[in-house]
């Protein structure tokens, strides 16, 4: 995978849909999206996760032309790690995020919400602010 301008390999992460949704309101979430633009992170995107992103963007009343560009970013080689074959219907958003994290080699989940209390998994669940701090180190 291509290194970004800082010379570091992009950090593989799973972006919870709330990071994209809040990215229009919250400065930390917006900065996470900018770090994606700049190649500092590369989101792991499964088919189920992509469907949720698209559902969210449609709910935000974003025009189809822009949604197509979001999909391009969420599926293009070098911009994301797109794993289109993984899909199981009827799961919760949390289960979909965990699956993406495991499929992406234990990539941390970046979310606005705190880690679920019943989470007994080994996957890191961090906030946008924590991710940004780790990128600055």
């Amino acid at each position: 995978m291509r290194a970004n301008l800082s010379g570091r390999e992009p950090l593989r992460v799973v972006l919870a849909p709330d990071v994209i949704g809040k990215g229009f309101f919250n400065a930390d979430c917006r900065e996470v999206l900018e770090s994606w633009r700049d190649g500092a992170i590369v989101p792991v995107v499964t088919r189920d996760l992509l469907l949720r992103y698209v559902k969210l963007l449609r709910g935000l009343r974003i025009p189809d032309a822009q949604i197509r560009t979001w999909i391009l970013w969420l599926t293009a080689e070098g911009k994301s790690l797109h794993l289109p074959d993984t899909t199981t219907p009827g799961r919760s958003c949390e289960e979909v995020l965990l699956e993406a994290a495991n499929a992406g080699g234990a990539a941390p989940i970046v979310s606005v919400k705190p880690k679920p209390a019943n989470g007994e998994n080994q996957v890191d669940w961090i906030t946008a602010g924590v991710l940004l701090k780790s990128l600055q180190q």
Partner: protein
Amino acid sequence: MTNDDIMTVEEVAKYLKLKPQTVYKWAQEGQIPGTKLGKEWRFRRRILDEWIDTSIALSEGGFDLMYQQSLLAVRRGALAEKDIDKLLEGLDEG
């Protein structure tokens, strides 16, 4: 010239405002979509247009445009943060 026209290296160079050597090099490296018929490279204009559009969309400027236009749409829809929370809750239904 129609969108389905087949183009030579020289025509692509003129269209993209590049040197023919650059187009030839990119074609050899697989950086530009084309096919070799015998010893000659050939390109389809429609595919070149799609390739350029995708390249622009995947640039930093393309990301900024996507974000800004999405932000405008959110504002135009007068969506508040609590509306986003409702939408996010709805994502659990898949």
